Protein backbone atom coordinates (compact mmCIF):
# COMPACT_ATOMS: atom_id res chain seq x y z
CA UNK A 1 0.00 0.00 0.00
CA UNK A 2 1.40 3.40 -0.98
CA UNK A 3 1.13 5.16 2.33
CA UNK A 4 3.18 8.19 1.38
CA UNK A 5 2.47 9.06 -2.23
CA UNK A 6 3.39 11.97 -4.51
CA UNK A 7 -0.24 13.07 -4.45
CA UNK A 8 -0.25 13.37 -0.68
CA UNK A 9 3.01 15.27 -0.70
CA UNK A 10 1.54 17.63 -3.27
CA UNK A 11 -1.32 18.56 -0.95
CA UNK A 12 1.11 19.29 1.89
CA UNK A 13 3.35 21.43 -0.33
CA UNK A 14 0.31 23.28 -1.67
CA UNK A 15 -0.80 24.10 1.86
CA UNK A 16 2.65 25.27 2.88
CA UNK A 17 2.95 27.44 -0.22
CA UNK A 18 -0.50 28.91 0.39
CA UNK A 19 0.58 29.78 3.93
CA UNK A 20 3.71 31.46 2.59
CA UNK A 21 1.61 33.41 0.10
CA UNK A 22 -0.79 34.57 2.83
CA UNK A 23 2.18 35.54 4.96
CA UNK A 24 3.64 37.65 2.17
CA UNK A 25 0.33 39.35 1.50
CA UNK A 26 -0.20 40.15 5.17
CA UNK A 27 3.30 41.43 5.80
CA UNK A 28 3.15 43.72 2.76
CA UNK A 29 -0.14 45.17 4.02
CA UNK A 30 -3.24 44.05 2.18
CA UNK A 31 -6.64 45.68 2.67
CA UNK A 32 -8.50 42.47 1.83
CA UNK A 33 -6.63 40.55 4.51
CA UNK A 34 -7.39 43.30 7.04
CA UNK A 35 -11.09 43.17 6.16
CA UNK A 36 -11.18 39.40 6.50
CA UNK A 37 -9.43 39.70 9.87
CA UNK A 38 -11.93 42.32 11.09
CA UNK A 39 -14.85 40.16 9.94
CA UNK A 40 -13.49 37.05 11.59
CA UNK A 41 -12.91 38.95 14.85
CA UNK A 42 -16.56 40.05 14.79
CA UNK A 43 -17.71 36.48 14.21
CA UNK A 44 -15.56 35.22 17.07
CA UNK A 45 -16.63 37.89 19.59
CA UNK A 46 -19.97 36.33 20.65
CA UNK A 47 -18.51 32.81 20.61
CA UNK A 48 -15.64 33.89 22.86
CA UNK A 49 -17.98 35.76 25.21
CA UNK A 50 -20.19 32.71 25.57
CA UNK A 51 -17.19 30.42 26.05
CA UNK A 52 -15.77 32.79 28.63
CA UNK A 53 -19.00 32.72 30.62
CA UNK A 54 -19.29 28.93 30.45
CA UNK A 55 -15.66 28.24 31.36
CA UNK A 56 -15.45 30.87 34.10
CA UNK A 57 -16.24 28.41 36.94
CA UNK A 58 -13.49 26.08 35.71
CA UNK A 59 -11.01 28.96 35.64
CA UNK A 60 -11.97 29.94 39.17
CA UNK A 61 -11.65 26.39 40.43
CA UNK A 62 -8.23 26.06 38.79
CA UNK A 63 -7.05 29.35 40.26
CA UNK A 64 -8.46 28.35 43.63
CA UNK A 65 -6.50 25.11 43.64
CA UNK A 66 -3.27 26.27 42.03
CA UNK A 67 -2.87 29.89 43.10
CA UNK A 68 -4.50 30.09 46.54
CA UNK A 69 -1.28 30.20 48.59
CA UNK A 70 0.36 32.67 46.23
CA UNK A 71 -2.73 34.83 46.38
CA UNK A 72 -2.70 34.88 50.15
CA UNK A 73 0.97 35.88 50.30
CA UNK A 74 0.43 38.47 47.62
CA UNK A 75 -2.51 39.87 49.53
CA UNK A 76 -0.36 40.40 52.60
CA UNK A 77 2.40 41.98 50.54
CA UNK A 78 -0.12 44.26 48.85
CA UNK A 79 -1.55 45.32 52.20
CA UNK A 80 1.93 46.30 53.36
CA UNK A 81 2.51 48.14 50.12
CA UNK A 82 -0.84 49.92 50.45
CA UNK A 83 0.01 51.09 53.95
CA UNK A 84 3.32 52.49 52.73
CA UNK A 85 1.72 54.13 49.71
CA UNK A 86 -0.97 55.85 51.76
CA UNK A 87 1.82 57.41 53.77
CA UNK A 88 3.65 58.78 50.77
CA UNK A 89 0.66 59.63 48.59
CA UNK A 90 0.14 63.14 49.90
CA UNK A 91 3.74 64.18 49.43
CA UNK A 92 3.84 62.53 45.98
CA UNK A 93 0.73 64.41 44.85
CA UNK A 94 2.22 67.66 46.02
CA UNK A 95 5.41 66.89 44.10
CA UNK A 96 3.48 66.11 40.93
CA UNK A 97 1.55 69.36 41.12
CA UNK A 98 4.74 71.27 41.78
CA UNK A 99 6.46 69.56 38.85
CA UNK A 100 3.58 70.34 36.50
CA UNK A 101 3.58 73.97 37.57
CA UNK A 102 7.30 74.19 36.91
CA UNK A 103 6.96 72.53 33.52
CA UNK A 104 4.16 74.89 32.56
CA UNK A 105 6.23 77.83 33.77
CA UNK A 106 9.14 76.94 31.54
CA UNK A 107 6.96 75.71 28.63
CA UNK A 108 8.34 72.21 28.99
CA UNK A 109 6.37 69.26 27.54
CA UNK A 110 4.36 67.47 30.18
CA UNK A 111 1.84 64.63 30.35
CA UNK A 112 -0.86 66.76 31.92
CA UNK A 113 -1.92 68.37 28.65
CA UNK A 114 -2.34 65.15 26.69
CA UNK A 115 -5.77 63.54 26.37
CA UNK A 116 -6.19 59.93 27.32
CA UNK A 117 -8.79 57.25 26.73
CA UNK A 118 -9.60 54.70 29.41
CA UNK A 119 -10.05 51.13 28.18
CA UNK A 120 -10.34 47.68 29.69
CA UNK A 121 -8.18 44.70 28.88
CA UNK A 122 -10.41 42.01 27.43
CA UNK A 123 -7.92 39.38 26.32
CA UNK A 124 -4.36 38.14 26.40
CA UNK A 125 -2.31 36.54 23.62
CA UNK A 126 -3.06 32.83 23.31
CA UNK A 127 0.45 31.83 22.27
CA UNK A 128 3.72 31.60 24.15
CA UNK A 129 5.67 34.01 21.95
CA UNK A 130 3.76 37.28 21.74
CA UNK A 131 3.21 39.62 24.66
CA UNK A 132 0.03 41.26 23.46
CA UNK A 133 -3.25 42.24 25.12
CA UNK A 134 -6.53 43.28 23.58
CA UNK A 135 -8.48 46.31 24.82
CA UNK A 136 -12.12 47.19 24.27
CA UNK A 137 -11.62 50.60 22.63
CA UNK A 138 -10.54 51.21 19.07
CA UNK A 139 -10.60 53.56 16.14
CA UNK A 140 -13.96 55.05 17.14
CA UNK A 141 -12.43 56.30 20.39
CA UNK A 142 -9.62 58.08 18.59
CA UNK A 143 -7.05 55.37 19.16
CA UNK A 144 -4.50 54.77 16.44
CA UNK A 145 -1.44 52.62 15.89
CA UNK A 146 1.65 53.63 17.84
CA UNK A 147 -0.03 55.36 20.79
CA UNK A 148 1.48 54.57 24.20
CA UNK A 149 -0.62 52.75 26.78
CA UNK A 150 -0.19 53.25 30.52
CA UNK A 151 -1.84 52.30 33.76
CA UNK A 152 -1.59 53.89 37.21
CA UNK A 153 1.90 52.46 37.69
CA UNK A 154 3.43 53.51 34.38
CA UNK A 155 4.06 52.49 30.78
CA UNK A 156 2.72 49.10 29.71
CA UNK A 157 3.08 49.12 25.91
CA UNK A 158 1.93 50.57 22.61
CA UNK A 159 -0.99 50.08 20.25
CA UNK A 160 -0.05 47.90 17.28
CA UNK A 161 -3.36 47.07 15.62
CA UNK A 162 -6.70 48.87 15.69
CA UNK A 163 -10.18 47.86 14.64
CA UNK A 164 -13.34 49.92 15.10
CA UNK A 165 -14.00 48.78 18.65
CA UNK A 166 -10.87 46.96 19.76
CA UNK A 167 -7.12 47.46 19.71
CA UNK A 168 -4.10 45.27 20.34
CA UNK A 169 -1.44 46.51 22.68
CA UNK A 170 2.09 45.15 22.43
CA UNK A 171 3.48 44.99 25.95
CA UNK A 172 6.86 46.35 26.97
CA UNK A 173 8.09 42.77 27.49
CA UNK A 174 7.48 41.73 23.86
CA UNK A 175 10.75 41.07 22.05
CA UNK A 176 9.69 43.39 19.23
CA UNK A 177 9.14 46.36 21.56
CA UNK A 178 11.70 49.18 21.68
CA UNK A 179 11.44 52.70 23.07
CA UNK A 180 13.84 55.49 23.93
CA UNK A 181 14.22 56.03 27.67
CA UNK A 182 16.18 58.20 30.06
CA UNK A 183 17.69 57.05 33.31
CA UNK A 184 17.62 59.34 36.30
CA UNK A 185 19.15 58.94 39.72
CA UNK A 186 16.64 57.62 42.16
CA UNK A 187 15.62 58.63 45.63
CA UNK A 188 16.40 55.49 47.61
CA UNK A 189 14.07 54.18 50.27
CA UNK A 190 16.42 55.44 52.93
CA UNK A 191 16.59 58.84 51.30
CA UNK A 192 12.93 59.65 51.71
CA UNK A 193 12.42 62.66 53.96
CA UNK A 194 12.06 61.58 57.60
CA UNK A 195 11.80 63.52 60.79
CA UNK A 196 14.50 62.49 63.20
CA UNK A 197 15.47 63.54 66.70
CA UNK A 198 19.05 64.32 67.75
CA UNK A 199 19.22 60.75 69.03
CA UNK A 200 18.80 59.49 65.48
CA UNK A 201 15.42 57.97 66.33
CA UNK A 202 12.15 59.22 64.91
CA UNK A 203 9.37 60.31 67.26
CA UNK A 204 7.43 57.21 66.21
CA UNK A 205 10.40 54.99 66.99
CA UNK A 206 10.77 56.54 70.42
CA UNK A 207 7.08 55.98 71.04
CA UNK A 208 7.23 52.38 69.78
CA UNK A 209 10.32 51.61 71.82
CA UNK A 210 8.73 52.79 75.03
CA UNK A 211 7.10 49.96 76.98
CA UNK A 212 3.88 50.79 78.78
CA UNK A 213 2.63 49.10 81.94
CA UNK A 214 -0.36 49.84 84.13
CA UNK A 215 0.13 50.41 87.81
CA UNK A 216 -2.60 50.11 90.41
CA UNK A 217 -0.64 51.73 93.19
CA UNK A 218 -0.69 55.36 91.97
CA UNK A 219 -4.30 55.75 90.90
CA UNK A 220 -5.61 59.28 91.48
CA UNK A 221 -9.27 59.70 92.48
CA UNK A 222 -11.67 59.05 89.63
CA UNK A 223 -8.98 57.79 87.29
CA UNK A 224 -9.23 54.27 85.92
CA UNK A 225 -5.51 53.76 86.24
CA UNK A 226 -2.19 55.41 85.79
CA UNK A 227 0.44 54.51 83.26
CA UNK A 228 4.09 53.93 83.91
CA UNK A 229 6.23 54.44 80.82
CA UNK A 230 9.71 53.01 80.60
CA UNK A 231 12.04 54.93 78.32
CA UNK A 232 13.66 53.15 75.38
CA UNK A 233 17.12 51.85 76.16
CA UNK A 234 18.66 53.38 73.03
CA UNK A 235 17.81 56.95 74.03
CA UNK A 236 21.09 58.78 74.69
CA UNK A 237 20.27 60.74 77.81
CA UNK A 238 23.28 61.79 79.86
CA UNK A 239 23.49 59.73 83.02
CA UNK A 240 23.94 62.76 85.26
CA UNK A 241 20.47 64.09 84.51
CA UNK A 242 18.70 60.80 85.00
CA UNK A 243 16.77 60.02 88.24
CA UNK A 244 18.23 60.74 91.59
CA UNK A 245 19.97 63.97 90.59
CA UNK A 246 17.00 66.13 91.57
CA UNK A 247 13.81 65.60 93.55
CA UNK A 248 10.55 64.24 92.07
CA UNK A 249 8.44 67.01 90.42
CA UNK A 250 5.07 67.94 91.90
CA UNK A 251 2.17 65.71 90.88
CA UNK A 252 0.43 68.44 88.79
CA UNK A 253 3.53 68.80 86.61
CA UNK A 254 3.65 65.14 85.74
CA UNK A 255 2.63 64.35 82.15
CA UNK A 256 -0.68 62.68 81.41
CA UNK A 257 -1.86 60.79 78.30
CA UNK A 258 -4.88 61.54 76.08
CA UNK A 259 -7.31 59.70 78.32
CA UNK A 260 -6.25 61.78 81.23
CA UNK A 261 -4.54 58.88 82.95
CA UNK A 262 -1.45 59.71 84.91
CA UNK A 263 1.79 58.91 83.13
CA UNK A 264 4.92 58.23 85.13
CA UNK A 265 8.18 58.00 83.22
CA UNK A 266 10.83 55.71 84.68
CA UNK A 267 14.47 54.95 83.92
CA UNK A 268 14.77 51.73 81.88
CA UNK A 269 17.79 50.50 83.83
CA UNK A 270 17.01 51.38 87.43
CA UNK A 271 13.22 51.63 87.25
CA UNK A 272 13.32 54.93 89.20
CA UNK A 273 10.86 57.71 88.38
CA UNK A 274 12.26 60.57 86.23
CA UNK A 275 12.69 64.00 87.83
CA UNK A 276 11.65 67.40 86.37
CA UNK A 277 14.98 68.13 84.71
CA UNK A 278 15.05 64.77 83.01
CA UNK A 279 11.49 65.30 81.79
CA UNK A 280 12.36 68.70 80.33
CA UNK A 281 15.33 67.19 78.57
CA UNK A 282 13.15 64.43 77.22
CA UNK A 283 10.57 66.95 75.95
CA UNK A 284 13.34 68.81 74.17
CA UNK A 285 14.66 65.62 72.60
CA UNK A 286 11.29 64.61 71.17
CA UNK A 287 10.25 68.07 69.97
CA UNK A 288 13.50 69.14 68.31
CA UNK A 289 13.19 67.20 65.07
CA UNK A 290 15.12 67.77 61.87
CA UNK A 291 14.14 66.84 58.33
CA UNK A 292 16.56 65.01 56.05
CA UNK A 293 15.97 66.00 52.42
CA UNK A 294 16.39 63.54 49.53
CA UNK A 295 19.19 63.99 47.05
CA UNK A 296 18.51 66.00 43.88
CA UNK A 297 17.26 63.94 40.90
CA UNK A 298 19.86 63.90 38.12
CA UNK A 299 19.39 62.79 34.52
CA UNK A 300 22.15 60.30 33.90
CA UNK A 301 21.88 58.75 30.45
CA UNK A 302 19.62 57.98 27.49
CA UNK A 303 19.22 54.52 25.97
CA UNK A 304 16.85 52.12 24.22
CA UNK A 305 14.59 49.88 26.26
CA UNK A 306 13.93 46.53 24.59
CA UNK A 307 11.54 43.75 25.61
CA UNK A 308 12.95 40.24 25.84
CA UNK A 309 9.87 38.06 26.04
CA UNK A 310 7.73 36.46 28.69
CA UNK A 311 9.09 36.32 32.27
CA UNK A 312 12.28 38.20 31.34
CA UNK A 313 13.03 41.73 32.42
CA UNK A 314 13.34 44.30 29.62
CA UNK A 315 16.85 45.63 29.03
CA UNK A 316 18.32 49.02 28.24
CA UNK A 317 21.09 49.06 25.64
CA UNK A 318 23.20 51.67 23.90
CA UNK A 319 24.42 53.19 27.13
CA UNK A 320 27.71 54.84 27.84
CA UNK A 321 28.72 54.84 31.46
CA UNK A 322 30.56 58.00 32.42
CA UNK A 323 31.70 57.71 36.03
CA UNK A 324 32.83 61.35 36.10
CA UNK A 325 29.22 62.49 35.58
CA UNK A 326 27.10 59.78 37.14
CA UNK A 327 27.24 56.02 37.63
CA UNK A 328 24.35 53.94 36.39
CA UNK A 329 23.27 51.72 39.22
CA UNK A 330 20.50 49.58 40.63
CA UNK A 331 17.47 51.53 41.76
CA UNK A 332 17.81 54.31 39.18
CA UNK A 333 14.53 55.48 37.71
CA UNK A 334 13.61 54.87 34.07
CA UNK A 335 11.24 57.15 32.15
CA UNK A 336 10.36 57.61 28.50
CA UNK A 337 12.70 60.05 26.82
CA UNK A 338 10.29 61.57 24.31
CA UNK A 339 11.68 63.39 21.28
CA UNK A 340 10.66 64.34 17.78
CA UNK A 341 10.21 60.82 16.42
CA UNK A 342 9.30 59.04 19.65
CA UNK A 343 5.88 57.42 19.89
CA UNK A 344 5.64 58.28 23.60
CA UNK A 345 5.89 61.70 25.27
CA UNK A 346 8.64 62.37 27.74
CA UNK A 347 8.24 61.58 31.40
CA UNK A 348 6.10 58.43 31.46
CA UNK A 349 7.51 56.32 34.30
CA UNK A 350 8.63 52.89 33.15
CA UNK A 351 10.38 51.27 36.10
CA UNK A 352 13.61 50.97 38.05
CA UNK A 353 16.98 49.51 37.19
CA UNK A 354 17.08 46.05 38.76
CA UNK A 355 20.47 44.75 37.61
CA UNK A 356 23.51 46.10 35.88
CA UNK A 357 25.71 43.92 33.66
CA UNK A 358 29.00 45.30 32.37
CA UNK A 359 30.12 44.19 28.95
CA UNK A 360 33.71 44.04 27.78
CA UNK A 361 34.89 46.55 25.19
CA UNK A 362 32.92 49.62 24.17
CA UNK A 363 29.54 47.92 24.39
CA UNK A 364 28.59 49.81 27.53
CA UNK A 365 26.57 48.34 30.38
CA UNK A 366 23.26 46.51 30.07
CA UNK A 367 20.56 47.40 32.55
CA UNK A 368 17.67 45.11 33.49
CA UNK A 369 14.54 47.09 34.27
CA UNK A 370 11.95 46.06 36.83
CA UNK A 371 8.72 47.49 35.44
CA UNK A 372 6.44 49.56 37.66
CA UNK A 373 3.35 48.02 36.09
CA UNK A 374 2.40 44.42 36.78
CA UNK A 375 1.75 43.19 33.26
CA UNK A 376 0.27 39.90 34.43
CA UNK A 377 -2.63 41.67 36.10
CA UNK A 378 -3.87 44.37 33.79
CA UNK A 379 -7.44 45.54 33.96
CA UNK A 380 -8.11 49.18 33.25
CA UNK A 381 -5.53 50.95 31.15
CA UNK A 382 -5.22 54.40 29.63
CA UNK A 383 -4.31 55.02 26.01
CA UNK A 384 -2.39 58.29 25.71
CA UNK A 385 -3.76 59.97 22.59
CA UNK A 386 -0.35 61.22 21.61
CA UNK A 387 1.11 61.70 18.18
CA UNK A 388 4.84 62.09 17.65
CA UNK A 389 5.92 65.71 17.33
CA UNK A 390 7.15 65.05 13.79
CA UNK A 391 3.64 63.99 12.73
CA UNK A 392 1.98 66.92 14.47
CA UNK A 393 4.21 69.39 12.66
CA UNK A 394 3.26 67.88 9.28
Amino acid sequence: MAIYTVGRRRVIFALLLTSALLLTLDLRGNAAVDRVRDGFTRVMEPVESATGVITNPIERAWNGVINYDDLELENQALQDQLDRLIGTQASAEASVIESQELQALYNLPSLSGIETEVAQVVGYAANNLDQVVEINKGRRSGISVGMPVVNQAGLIGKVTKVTDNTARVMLVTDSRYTIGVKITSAVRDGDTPVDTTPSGLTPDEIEDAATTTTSSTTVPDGDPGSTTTTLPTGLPIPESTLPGASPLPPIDELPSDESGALVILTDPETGEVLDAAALDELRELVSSTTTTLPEVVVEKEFGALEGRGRLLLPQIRFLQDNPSLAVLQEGDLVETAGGLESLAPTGIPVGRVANRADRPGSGGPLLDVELNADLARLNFVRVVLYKPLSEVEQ
Partner: protein
Amino acid sequence: MFASFVQGPLVRVIPLGILLLALQRTIFVELQVNGVILQVMMAMAAAAGVAGGSERGAVVGFIFGVMFDLAEGTPLGSTAIAMTIAGVVGGLLALIAADPHWWLAAIFTGLGTAAGVASVPLIRAFIGEPEPFQQRLAVVVAITAAAGAILSPLLVPLARWCLRMKKAEWTQPVGEAAT
Protein backbone atom coordinates in the same frame (compact mmCIF):
# COMPACT_ATOMS: atom_id res chain seq x y z
CA MET B 1 -20.41 20.50 -4.97
CA PHE B 2 -22.68 21.48 -2.08
CA ALA B 3 -23.32 17.83 -1.35
CA SER B 4 -19.60 17.06 -1.29
CA PHE B 5 -19.04 19.97 1.10
CA VAL B 6 -21.79 18.83 3.43
CA GLN B 7 -20.58 15.25 3.36
CA GLY B 8 -16.93 16.20 3.60
CA PRO B 9 -14.92 16.86 6.74
CA LEU B 10 -14.88 20.69 6.47
CA VAL B 11 -18.41 21.04 7.76
CA ARG B 12 -17.19 19.57 11.04
CA VAL B 13 -13.64 20.90 11.05
CA ILE B 14 -14.57 24.60 10.86
CA PRO B 15 -17.12 24.67 13.74
CA LEU B 16 -14.76 22.55 15.85
CA GLY B 17 -11.97 24.99 15.01
CA ILE B 18 -14.10 27.96 16.13
CA LEU B 19 -14.95 26.19 19.37
CA LEU B 20 -11.33 25.24 20.08
CA LEU B 21 -10.17 28.74 19.18
CA ALA B 22 -12.63 30.23 21.66
CA LEU B 23 -11.38 27.79 24.32
CA GLN B 24 -7.77 28.56 23.45
CA ARG B 25 -8.33 32.30 23.80
CA THR B 26 -10.32 32.10 27.03
CA ILE B 27 -9.78 29.21 29.40
CA PHE B 28 -6.42 28.01 28.13
CA VAL B 29 -4.92 31.48 28.57
CA GLU B 30 -5.81 31.18 32.26
CA LEU B 31 -4.90 27.53 32.82
CA GLN B 32 -1.18 28.01 32.43
CA VAL B 33 1.32 25.43 33.60
CA ASN B 34 4.55 26.99 34.84
CA GLY B 35 3.71 30.12 32.86
CA VAL B 36 3.20 28.19 29.61
CA ILE B 37 -0.04 28.43 27.64
CA LEU B 38 -1.18 24.99 26.52
CA GLN B 39 -1.70 24.83 22.75
CA VAL B 40 -4.90 22.84 22.31
CA MET B 41 -5.33 23.75 18.64
CA MET B 42 -1.80 22.62 17.84
CA ALA B 43 -2.46 19.37 19.70
CA MET B 44 -5.70 18.89 17.75
CA ALA B 45 -3.86 19.33 14.44
CA ALA B 46 -1.32 16.70 15.51
CA ALA B 47 -4.13 14.41 16.67
CA ALA B 48 -5.81 14.79 13.27
CA GLY B 49 -2.54 13.68 11.70
CA VAL B 50 -2.38 10.65 13.98
CA ALA B 51 -6.00 9.75 13.29
CA GLY B 52 -6.18 10.45 9.58
CA GLY B 53 -2.66 10.55 8.21
CA SER B 54 -0.31 13.35 7.30
CA GLU B 55 -2.43 14.77 4.47
CA ARG B 56 -5.57 15.17 6.54
CA GLY B 57 -3.51 16.38 9.46
CA ALA B 58 -1.97 19.04 7.24
CA VAL B 59 -5.40 20.21 6.03
CA VAL B 60 -6.79 20.43 9.56
CA GLY B 61 -3.61 22.15 10.78
CA PHE B 62 -3.77 24.67 7.96
CA ILE B 63 -7.41 25.55 8.63
CA PHE B 64 -6.87 25.85 12.37
CA GLY B 65 -3.70 27.88 11.84
CA VAL B 66 -5.40 30.40 9.54
CA MET B 67 -8.24 30.78 12.04
CA PHE B 68 -5.75 31.27 14.87
CA ASP B 69 -3.80 33.91 12.92
CA LEU B 70 -6.98 35.78 11.99
CA ALA B 71 -8.19 35.91 15.58
CA GLU B 72 -4.84 36.52 17.28
CA GLY B 73 -3.49 39.16 14.94
CA THR B 74 -0.29 37.21 14.33
CA PRO B 75 1.10 37.35 10.76
CA LEU B 76 -1.44 35.47 8.63
CA GLY B 77 0.03 32.11 7.66
CA SER B 78 2.75 31.95 10.32
CA THR B 79 0.81 29.73 12.73
CA ALA B 80 -0.83 27.99 9.76
CA ILE B 81 2.59 26.71 8.68
CA ALA B 82 3.38 25.58 12.24
CA MET B 83 0.08 23.73 12.64
CA THR B 84 0.43 22.18 9.19
CA ILE B 85 3.82 20.86 10.30
CA ALA B 86 2.25 19.52 13.50
CA GLY B 87 -0.37 17.63 11.49
CA VAL B 88 2.18 16.27 9.02
CA VAL B 89 4.58 15.12 11.77
CA GLY B 90 1.73 13.47 13.69
CA GLY B 91 0.65 11.68 10.50
CA LEU B 92 4.15 10.56 9.57
CA LEU B 93 4.79 9.18 13.05
CA ALA B 94 1.50 7.29 12.92
CA LEU B 95 2.89 5.33 9.99
CA ILE B 96 5.04 3.40 12.46
CA ALA B 97 1.99 1.53 13.70
CA ALA B 98 -1.06 0.79 11.54
CA ASP B 99 -3.52 1.00 14.41
CA PRO B 100 -1.60 2.47 17.34
CA HIS B 101 -2.56 1.85 20.95
CA TRP B 102 -3.83 4.85 22.87
CA TRP B 103 -0.48 5.39 24.55
CA LEU B 104 1.37 5.24 21.24
CA ALA B 105 -1.14 7.72 19.77
CA ALA B 106 -0.49 9.92 22.80
CA ILE B 107 3.26 9.88 22.13
CA PHE B 108 2.73 10.68 18.44
CA THR B 109 0.36 13.53 19.29
CA GLY B 110 2.85 14.90 21.80
CA LEU B 111 5.71 14.76 19.31
CA GLY B 112 3.58 16.35 16.58
CA THR B 113 2.63 19.15 18.98
CA ALA B 114 6.27 19.62 19.93
CA ALA B 115 7.29 19.90 16.26
CA GLY B 116 4.59 22.52 15.66
CA VAL B 117 5.41 24.60 18.73
CA ALA B 118 9.15 24.46 18.03
CA SER B 119 8.64 25.63 14.46
CA VAL B 120 6.76 28.82 15.48
CA PRO B 121 9.91 30.82 16.43
CA LEU B 122 11.70 29.44 13.38
CA ILE B 123 8.97 30.81 11.12
CA ARG B 124 9.01 34.12 13.00
CA ALA B 125 12.76 34.31 12.46
CA PHE B 126 12.22 33.79 8.72
CA ILE B 127 9.83 36.73 8.55
CA GLY B 128 12.36 39.00 10.23
CA GLU B 129 11.13 39.14 13.79
CA PRO B 130 13.91 40.12 16.23
CA GLU B 131 14.97 37.44 18.73
CA PRO B 132 12.00 35.04 18.45
CA PHE B 133 13.90 32.22 20.18
CA GLN B 134 13.19 32.50 23.88
CA GLN B 135 15.50 31.12 26.53
CA ARG B 136 12.68 28.97 27.83
CA LEU B 137 11.68 27.53 24.44
CA ALA B 138 12.65 24.02 25.61
CA VAL B 139 10.32 24.33 28.61
CA VAL B 140 7.49 25.62 26.41
CA VAL B 141 7.94 22.77 23.92
CA ALA B 142 8.14 20.13 26.66
CA ILE B 143 5.04 21.32 28.51
CA THR B 144 2.90 21.78 25.40
CA ALA B 145 3.99 18.36 24.11
CA ALA B 146 3.12 16.72 27.42
CA ALA B 147 -0.26 18.47 27.42
CA GLY B 148 -0.88 17.29 23.85
CA ALA B 149 -0.05 13.73 24.86
CA ILE B 150 -2.35 13.89 27.90
CA LEU B 151 -5.21 15.32 25.85
CA SER B 152 -4.77 12.85 22.99
CA PRO B 153 -7.24 10.19 24.30
CA LEU B 154 -9.85 12.93 23.91
CA LEU B 155 -8.49 14.61 20.80
CA VAL B 156 -7.79 11.57 18.59
CA PRO B 157 -11.40 10.23 18.72
CA LEU B 158 -12.61 13.81 18.20
CA ALA B 159 -10.36 14.07 15.15
CA ARG B 160 -11.73 10.77 13.82
CA TRP B 161 -15.28 12.05 14.19
CA CYS B 162 -14.31 15.34 12.63
CA LEU B 163 -12.71 13.65 9.62
CA ARG B 164 -15.60 11.19 9.35
CA MET B 165 -13.29 8.24 9.89
CA LYS B 166 -14.02 5.04 11.71
CA LYS B 167 -11.59 3.12 13.82
CA ALA B 168 -9.96 0.38 11.77
CA GLU B 169 -11.57 -3.00 12.26
CA TRP B 170 -9.32 -5.98 11.63
CA THR B 171 -11.19 -8.94 10.17
CA GLN B 172 -9.97 -12.36 9.36
CA PRO B 173 -9.19 -12.88 5.64
CA VAL B 174 -11.97 -14.68 3.76
CA GLY B 175 -9.77 -17.61 2.76
CA GLU B 176 -8.55 -18.24 6.29
CA ALA B 177 -12.07 -17.99 7.68
CA ALA B 178 -13.17 -20.77 5.33
CA THR B 179 -10.43 -23.10 6.48
